[in-house]
């Protein structure tokens, strides 16, 4: 089973939920940090035996002498990453989405597959938990291919928890896609509710079962609860808005280790998700 922890809004507590959920389940869990622009799982779970692998993505390489200026590649590319202008073929590697179409349509064999570095894949261990993380190269804009590689590295694992990036755009979709359940973390503020609605719309398009975790519950009003009721969305858990939680978080400590009631709540959370996924697939 693969569970994605996502949110529309940033800073709602995705990493708090993902790390505590992983530790509550313990042995046999794989935790993926797919927030590759700003990975931070390692701040809570410091990995041991860290192995780093550079990750690249395909970009075309042009043999200008072999190019017959037919424009087939230029016509195919929706992103203008390869553009023929007045008999000159221009390549813009950072616009390329690595579809490989240009190489396929070139009738002259002038295009071959090359590569460009996207970032690093980091695999390590924290107690019984396997940690897999992506780290995007500074200056790189194309995160989905790296997110996909992080997920590929966890193929075949029994229970995978994905810490997704915030928002509702391509990187989030890349993180959610192909997973079994989406846990949307929100907070009871107008900002939390607004972005939760956007996230719900995105998850509904993907057609996945999902539920809500309210972090800093009691900090705002009951509009998130009312929204969930109206929409028929299950609220699986509420994390209290308390000084104790804030202190543990600020020290990079785990709530499930410091607060017994949190250990119980996160243990119950994974069972609720399992039940929801079984209901969904029945």
């Amino acid at each position, binding site marked *: 089973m693969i569970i994605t922890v996502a949110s529309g809004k940033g800073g709602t507590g995705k990493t708090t939920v993902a790390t505590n959920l992983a530790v509550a389940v313990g042995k046999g869990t794989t935790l993926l940090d797919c927030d590759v622009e700003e990975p931070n799982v390692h701040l809570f779970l410091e990995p041991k035996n860290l192995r780093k692998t550079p990750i690249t993505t395909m970009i075309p390489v042009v043999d200008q002498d072999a190019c017959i200026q037919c424009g087939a590649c230029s016509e195919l590319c929706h*992103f203008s990453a390869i553009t023929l202008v007045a008999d000159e073929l221009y390549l813009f590697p950072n616009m390329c989405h690595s579809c490989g179409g240009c190489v396929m349509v070139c009738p002259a064999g002038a295009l071959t597959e090359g590569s460009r570095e996207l970032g690093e894949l980091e695999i390590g261990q924290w107690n019984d938990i396997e940690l897999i993380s992506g780290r995007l190269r500074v200056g790189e*804009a194309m995160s989905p291919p790296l997110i996909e590689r992080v997920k590929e590295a966890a193929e075949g694992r029994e229970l995978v928890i994905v810490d997704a990036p915030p928002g509702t755009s391509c990187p989030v979709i890349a993180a959610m896609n192909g997973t079994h359940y989406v846990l949307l973390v929100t907070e009871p503020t107008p900002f939390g509710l607004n972005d939760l609605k956007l996230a719900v719309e995105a998850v509904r398009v993907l057609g996945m079962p999902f539920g809500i975790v309210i972090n800093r519950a009691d900090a705002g009003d009951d509009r998130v609860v009312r929204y969930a009721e109206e929409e028929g969305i299950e609220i699986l858990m509420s994390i209290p808005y308390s000084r104790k939680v804030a202190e543990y978080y600020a020290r990079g400590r785990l709530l499930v280790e410091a607060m017994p009631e949190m250990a119980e709540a996160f243990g119950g959370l994974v069972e609720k998700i399992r039940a929801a996924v079984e209901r969904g697939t029945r």
Partner: protein
Amino acid sequence: MKIAVTATAADFDAPMDLRFGRAACFLVVDTETMSWSVVENTQNLNAAQGAGIQAGKTIVETGCTAIITGNCGPKAFRILTGAGIKIVTGAKGSARQAVEQYKAGELQESSEANVEGHWI
């Protein structure tokens, strides 16, 4: 000499458009007679990315020798200079006034992109 200018409407007296890739339209002007024609840029206004590149391609295909605009990013700059087109920035007012300023030698040719590129 045939030059192009970015304009906010299909009218020589409309204000210049400071954007290049997502300019409302391009006006192609004969500097001798000051006669002009419109080249649409509708498709690029809604492009997800690559508007500058495609607009550059449009300008190259008009056969103009210079483009007067507000801002030009690095990708459009590469296409335009690659085709030997002069990029002229710093003009003010209407498209017609911009062309007049260019003819009077009041505007300078850019030697590099004057704004950052947009990524995706």
